[in-house]
């Protein structure tokens, strides 16, 4: 999976080039993110291109967070309304930080 990464304010941001984060790509997504995030304790994932996430995608996000180690923080930026609603439904909005994409943040 193609992902781009850049650092802003000391935090690595990963932007995957996918529109759906589901079981068909979840493992690839998880491995790509974990590889890029090695040694990081804070990570942001730009979710703005992702219009659909299912439970396998949520599991991949949780796995990425766990791969960062204890006390690590994973920030999901630019999540669409539907993705935010799913995070609330599954109470993962309490696990991940939610934020705006870096370019839109003040």
């Amino acid at each position, binding site marked *: 999976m193609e992902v781009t990464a850049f650092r802003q304010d000391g935090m690595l941001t990963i932007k995957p080039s996918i529109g759906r984060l*589901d*079981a*068909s790509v979840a493992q690839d997504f998880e491995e790509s993110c974990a590889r890029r995030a090695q040694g990081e304790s804070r990570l942001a994932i730009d979710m703005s291109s992702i219009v*659909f996430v*299912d*439970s396998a995608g949520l599991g991949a996000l*949780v796995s990425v*967070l766990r791969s960062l180690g204890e006390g690590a923080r994973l920030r999901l930026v630019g999540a669409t309304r539907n993705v935010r609603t799913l995070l609330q439904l*599954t109470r993962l909005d309490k696990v991940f930080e939610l934020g705006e994409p870096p370019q839109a943040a003040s």
Partner: protein
Amino acid sequence: MPQHRLRLVLAPTSEDVSRAGAALRAMLDACCGTGSHCHDIELGVAEALANVVRHGSRRTFIALRCTCGPAGVRVLAADDGNPADMTKLPAALPADPLAGSGRGLWIIARTVDAFRYRRFRSLNVHCLERRAACAR
């Protein structure tokens, strides 16, 4: 308002389930506009199909039949695998918020109004319904 229909036969793979989800969403958007219930039913169906792929055994296809109209959305998914064990949806999420799995059936329970399973002529048949008035 005309009723929209979609019929698909999928290989029991996560790739085909993903493509079916996108096709279902396109049909729902054409029928209803982009209401939140379109996302809900897409998500519920995707979870049901993913569950069939993940836990079903000895199945060679999944047949999907979807109708969308004024009464809502109805999706039938039939597969030829061994009898399924998905007759009850959970009442709670996994206790561990960092669990890597266990959210799929909960999501189905929260996104559709009715979910039924039956064994019919050597097929597992799952029926999902969402009673929502279309925006159009």
